[in-house]
């Protein structure tokens, strides 16, 4: 019995050491700049999109981002999800012309419809690179889901520009950014204070602009989010109730087993 027990103890100690080593090594890997956590209307199980912020964010996308970044998975009709009316969406779409084939078979242009995808600023990736000094601006349709840190990361990049620390060698045409991996980003600082004029009187500070456009982009990446969470709450409550009932039935069924 004795050797068995001591072996067991040794095994337990070995297991504990192994576990401790695993856990200790974990934080060593967490690196890169700390992300800001500005707090979002859409976080948490009951979070919803702040419609006004998302609409201001759309304005930023339209006036600033859309010069280089596409939003090709989204449709103009999706804008109804941030509170635009059908007429407003039609007007937004109609202000853009998209390529089509005319009745004569030749390439032509027509005003966009709500059913159209957002028009991309460049015809293709090569055209984008040619126009932008070799850099390819990523599509923003799911950018919030495509980056570690999500909204916090995008917000962090937009507000993370500054002077490089002394001694840091910057690449040609590169800009310093606290949050961007490697701290060198090809995109020049896109947002400045007072970059846009808000019609609702909100003061367009840099933080405000970044906050608004990230709210908009989070909506574009997760247009289903609000209904997803609403359904989710109902499903969880239903399952909790069902678990309770089933457990009571189980106790009753098993009550005669000894």
């Amino acid at each position: 019995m004795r050797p068995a027990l001591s072996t067991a103890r040794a095994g337990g100690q070995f297991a504990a050491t192994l576990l401790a080593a695993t856990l200790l090594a974990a934080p060593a890997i967490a690196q890169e700049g700390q992300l800001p956590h500005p707090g979002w209307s859409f976080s948490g199980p009951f979070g919803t999109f702040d419609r006004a912020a998302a609409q201001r964010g759309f304005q930023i996308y339209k006036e600033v981002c859309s010069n280089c970044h596409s939003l090709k998975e989204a449709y103009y009709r999706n804008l109804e999800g941030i509170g635009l009316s059908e007429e407003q969406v039609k007007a937004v779409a109609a202000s853009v012309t998209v390529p089509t084939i005319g009745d004569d078979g030749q390439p032509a242009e027509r005003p966009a419809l709500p059913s159209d995808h957002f028009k991309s600023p460049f015809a293709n990736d090569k055209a984008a690179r040619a126009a932008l000094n070799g850099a390819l601006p990523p599509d923003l349709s799911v950018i919030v889901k495509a980056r570690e840190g999500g909204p916090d990361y995008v917000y962090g990049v937009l507000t993370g520009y500054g002077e490089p620390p002394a001694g840091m060698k910057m690449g040609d045409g590169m800009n310093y950014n606290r949050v961007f991996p490697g701290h060198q980003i090809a995109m020049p600082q896109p947002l400045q204070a007072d970059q846009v004029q808000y019609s609702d009187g909100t003061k367009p500070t840099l933080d405000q602009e970044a906050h608004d456009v990230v709210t908009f982009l989070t909506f574009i990446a997760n247009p289903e989010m609000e209904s997803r969470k609403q359904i989710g709450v109902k499903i969880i409550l239903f399952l909790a109730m069902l678990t309770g009932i089933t457990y009571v039935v189980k106790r009753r069924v098993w009550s005669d087993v000894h």
Partner: protein
Amino acid sequence: MAGLHKSDYKNPVVNWIDTRLPLFTMMNKEYAVFPTPKNFNYFWNFGALATVTLLLMIATGVFLAMNYTPDSNMAFDSVERIMRDVNYGWLLRYAHANGASMFFIVVYIHIFRGLYYGSYKTPRELLWMLGVVILLLMMATAFMGYVLPWGQMSFWGATVITNLFSAFPLVGNAIVTWLWGGFAVGDPTLHRFFSLHYLLPFVLIGVVFFHVVALHITGSNNPLGIDVKSPQDTLPFHPYYTIKDSVGLCVFFMVWAAFVFFAPNFFGDPDNYIPANPLQTPSEIVPEWYFLPYYAILRSVPNKLGGVCMMFGSILVLFVLPWLDTSPVRSARFRPIYRALFWVHVVACIALGFVGAHRPEGWWVVLGRVATTYYFLHFLVLLPIIGKLERPLPLPESISRPVIPPRGGGGPLPGGAPAKPMEKP
């Protein structure tokens, strides 16, 4: 023997069918009155949970396939269309993607339950081996499914994993080209992966069927690991275990739903929301969490072929586990040394999972090698030896009298003998 089955069902329609095809009699025998050990704990829920998960994965998958396009130019966009335009498309996709993780959680718990309680030992060796086949099929299915959204991780995961086969001498490169249908992962690869991803789950159903048939031949193991001795030891499967499984199922669905509705991308990698780019590898290629331990074993071996062999070996060793473990006692409850080693093994597997998630640098390399060594040591060396050396605790007389007979005799129970090797039913 030819001849009509004599059915006792009163309902004439049921009786008519049952006489010709005794489905009702069979279901009644295998799922209603089937004698099941009365002492299962909730770890015995997980087989049923895995079956339900498989069926739900097939259901959601079939409907996803109605809207998915397996073309390298359209796959990513078609998934986004499912998420944005198809009615409840986001629900189907998130349920399916998180379902893969749920499936592995459930199956891993099911496997470790089998390891702890010795469910692989005679006479259940074949049952266990069929289980290992199920695991392998699941892994192949999950891997190919992960490729379908055609994001960066899909593409580079597919590239790295298929390249494993290039480690084999002489034929390696030919195999890889054959797998790809080209000279890199591309359109033909995506098409064939989609085809196989749709096919394999139905093969899985077939193997699961045999797994259940084998289970119903030998009967279930139980937490005591001793054989059923009398009807006193068992309960009919229905209603006792149908209701107990239902409780577990409800809790399981809650966990699944919590991820689907509130953290749908928790298990996912952000890089997979970037469309596949054959010219740029993501800074870190990490497989889905359920493959991390194998990935860690692969990287812990400095030699390419050696790593591949060890990785596959880590699963293949399970096939011979029933013959490596030499102890006649099944349940770890009565095996103090094995019980300790079992937990070391669990920790080693978890450690390998962490190692697989990180770059092979510094401590991680050391940890990975220690854990890999232990993994194989556990199965290949320790289990055969301790089976011989370990002195098991005395086994209870029967399931219905789970009392350990007092030492030195004199108790009311006859035969308080310690561990009879592998008692016959």
